[in-house]
């Protein structure tokens, strides 16, 4: 009887954690829209590199059966489709040379809000995400970091 009680007590934290774990969302397909910039000045190559890298990452993760691009006509016939919108709230372009010379300055940073909506309407997710290049690599490397973080959020929630 005593060992049984000890086992039960030992399992309690695990049970509590399992109950706290949020329920995952479900969707068979995701459509990724291009980055919205609003009033923020950001070079076109950053905008489109984020879009392309995001598609690559989400496809590679395999969370969704279908990953569709913006404007894809085949999205019309998919009932459980969600749409990913991203809007930039801040952009700071650094310098690769400055980063490599000083180590602490010259970083590139992009802040954005990622929103996942059902096709029929209704927001499922809304997260603020920041991408950075701090030490080595080209400024465009920030797009890779950002796509990685957005894909991680999708993976955690779907």
């Amino acid at each position, binding site marked *: 009887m005593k060992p049984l009680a000890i086992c039960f007590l030992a399992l309690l934290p695990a049970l509590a954690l399992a109950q706290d774990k949020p329920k995952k969302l479900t969707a068979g397909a995701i459509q990724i829209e291009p980055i919205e910039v609003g009033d923020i000045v950001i070079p076109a*190559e950053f905008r*489109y*590199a984020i879009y*392309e890298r995001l598609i690559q990452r989400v496809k590679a993760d395999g969370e969704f059966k279908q990953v569709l*691009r*913006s404007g*894809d*006509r085949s999205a019309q016939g998919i009932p459980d489709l969600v749409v990913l919108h991203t809007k930039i709230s801040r952009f700071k372009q650094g310098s690769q040379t400055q980063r490599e010379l000083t180590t602490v300055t010259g970083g590139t940073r992009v802040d954005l809000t990622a929103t996942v909506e059902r096709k029929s309407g209704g927001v499922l997710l809304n997260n603020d995400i920041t991408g950075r290049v701090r030490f080595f690599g*080209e400024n*465009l490397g920030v797009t890779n970091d950002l796509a990685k973080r957005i894909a991680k959020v999708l993976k955690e929630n779907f």
Partner: protein
Amino acid sequence: MFKSACVLTILAMATLPTLSAQFVPSTAALPDGSIPKCRHLIGLGDIKSQQGGTLGVKNGSLSFDGGKSQQATIPAASIDDVVLGSEVTQAGGKTGRVVKTAAMAAPFESGKALTILLRTKVDILTVVYHDDNGALHSTIFAVPKGLAAGLRTQLITAGAHASPLAEEAQK
């Protein structure tokens, strides 16, 4: 340790002229208007990121030739926008990166001098297009400085759409 670091630095410095000559892009386009020593950054289907190759406009399409199984074309009629940008980046490709990493061992952070010596300015060419299904695609290339504008003009002549450049819009 100090001695080996010094040797490394000297070796790295000695390779610099070769590296510069080999990797800093020349500013001449080929007679047919295509541009060698371009670098594909992202967006062209199965073509690897950082793949080098020749970019040109042939038979009404933008073509990228990066050697065996690394070729792609985009019909000019499907291009919605061609945007120019610029970026200061590291010259020397993978070799440059290896030399720079090796030079980190140099004493008194003297290896950082390589960062200044091994830098180059490139044009960034962003091509936005749609496929037969209406899906939005984009592809980005690093092009030797001063040559992307000519390629943009060739694409517009071939039938690509392009929003006016900032300086054109100001006129």
